[in-house]
């Protein structure tokens, strides 16, 4: 039995810039179930981070603006909440970890103080309780000599350890949803493996749902249950992880997976490459945003933007063309 915990519909976010309005997110729908991990992949500028930041109203407004949509979390619309209300959700029921652990930690505050802050704020702990819980949390994320290291400042921790501290902080109030925005991108592969391993273990122990934003199709394959691929501010394909990698259906997903070298490859194959580059989003796309780069492109693709539609069990794709047969979808 899957219980839905988050339901986002028609989310649109724009940014005002000197060059004009950037349509970063153009109508994103997705659901998240309890204890499920949803991977959100796409290249820079595709709107993956902006969509997730919008849900928590973490977009600086102005220049950003959430133009439309709703995000139902336990029968409440996060987007309609007042600043005061959403502050109780952030860091409490929904928490977030970011790409760069150095800039997300306060450099002039000890790790102990930073860990205790949300505990005292959201959980009503006193100083002593907060300290004990902080030690537990650091041990949970695998930091040795946790009690001693509370007195240390962020610069005394290595990159991987800082990301562990961020995770400890995000988990401190037992959130129901953890949003991880490229949490391993700044880390080396062996440290990335440690963090992925850690999140998988914590997910099993604590049972929270995770939204994992990344551009790395490899990392997503190792951690997600379901994957949404974004392009030009839209989700263009969504499927259970195995289905997506075995049967990608959107031309962009096919290209993305094909452009990766296979680690098992023996001979030297030429890499499949998607020509051209991602769109500039100064106008809301009226045609399929991928059509200028698509090799299946049909007349209809240049005139109408396809919606995300179910093609089989849990597999949704936004494309006018059936890439298996090469003909237009009915």
């Amino acid at each position: 039995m899957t219980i839905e915990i988050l339901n986002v519909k028609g989310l649109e976010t724009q940014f005002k810039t000197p060059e004009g309005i950037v349509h970063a997110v153009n109508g994103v729908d997705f659901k998240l179930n309890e204890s499920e991990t949803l991977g959100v992949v796409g290249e820079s500028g595709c709107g993956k981070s902006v969509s997730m930041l919008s849900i928590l109203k973490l977009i600086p407004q102005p220049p950003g603006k959430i133009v439309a949509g709703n995000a139902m979390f336990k029968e409440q619309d996060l987007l309609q909440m007042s600043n005061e209300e959403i502050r109780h959700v952030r860091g409490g029921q929904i928490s977030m970890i970011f790409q760069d652990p150095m800039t997300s930690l306060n450099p002039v505050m000890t790790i102990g103080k930073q860990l205790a802050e949300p505990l005292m704020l959201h959980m009503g702990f006193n100083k002593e309780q907060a300290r004990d819980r902080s030690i537990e949390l650091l041990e949970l994320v695998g930091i040795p000599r946790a009690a001693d290291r509370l007195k240390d400042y962020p610069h005394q921790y290595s990159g991987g350890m800082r990301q562990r501290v961020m995770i400890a902080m995000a988990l401190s109030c037992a959130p129901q949803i953890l949003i991880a925005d490229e949490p391993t991108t700044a880390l080396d592969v062996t440290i990335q493996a440690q963090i992925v391993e850690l999140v998988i273990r914590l997910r099993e122990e604590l049972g929270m749902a995770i939204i994992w934003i990344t551009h790395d199709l490899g990392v997503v394959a190792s951690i997600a249950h379901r994957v949404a691929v974004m392009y030009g501010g839209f989700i263009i394909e969504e499927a259970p992880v195995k289905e997506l990698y075995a049967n990608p259906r959107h031309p962009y997903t096919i290209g993305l997976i094909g452009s990766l070298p296979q680690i098992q490859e023996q001979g030297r194959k030429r890499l499949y490459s998607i020509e051209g580059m991602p769109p500039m989003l100064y106008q809301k796309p009226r045609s399929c945003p991928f059509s200028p780069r698509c090799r299946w492109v049909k007349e209809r693709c240049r005139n109408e933007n396809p919606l995300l539609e179910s093609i089989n069990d849990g597999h949704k794709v936004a494309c006018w063309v059936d890439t298996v047969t090469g003909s237009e979808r009915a």
Partner: protein
Amino acid sequence: MTENEVLVRVEDLKMHFPIYRGVIQRQVGSVRAVDGISFNIHRGETLGLVGESGCGKSTTGRTMLQLYKPTAGKVFFKDIELSSLKNEQMRQMRKNVQMIFQDPYASLNPRMTIRDIIAEPIVAFGTASGKEIDDRVNELMGLVKLDPDFMQRYPHEFSGGQRQRIGIARALANNPSFIVCDEPISALDVSIQAQVINLFEDLQKELDLTYLFIAHDLSMVRHISDRVAVMYLGITVELADRNEIYSNPIHPYTKALLSAIPVADPSFYETRERIVLEGDVPSPANPPSGCRFRTRCPIAEGYCAESRPEFREIMPGHFVECFKADHPDNKRR
């Protein structure tokens, strides 16, 4: 490709950066960024150099081209020892040895047009003049698949992938034979990476280039390289043919590194056993005694701390720096 003709030879190269402290700026130690490495690169080959940040892979590339003065060791290009060259001789040598940088945003002067950027090395060496310069720039832009009509534009008008092409055109301007590619694709988006990698491969075939390809993306390195060297804390721990090193890694660090690569195939994770290394890379200012990897090595013994293992050829063409390379503890995957 003529096999076995050595184009570049590195012998026991060391690059230590001094650390100064105090009012009189006394040298109190040194960062041993590169600490005694040796390898050959054959003509027409791509040698991949991989490792995590801070392992010394970029320093190796830069020191090889004498952008830093090596602390010790020798670099030969076609039997000419580079560090023995006088300034002007080395400057002339740079026609043959070139570099492509990681960040296509920082490595191009924002106030110069594309034409001027690409023409700069041609003008500097006087290899062409007058109208010939424009013809050459035209030709180079065609070679890297940029539209020559964009010649008068500035770097900010181009995307990351296009800027990297400009950097490549500039490196090719004086027909070099050896190019150090320092993480040339790490700053690019996934769909653009494949475009640039394909370009590197086409150019290599067309112009008979030899590459040292520095990267931390192990699957890309495997794709583009003929042989691969793995670095850890200033030394090369293993070097072998690309298929050999990926199917039969011997050094415990190489094994862990390979097992940590994210693979875009979910079913792969059901069967794979991950070797997750404990801890972090030690500081290169104070590296562990003996074997550099012993502090994180799952099979380290007491004697690993006593002396540094030899970088030895354990099988033809397969070099490993580990005491326990043949030991039963270090079982094959």
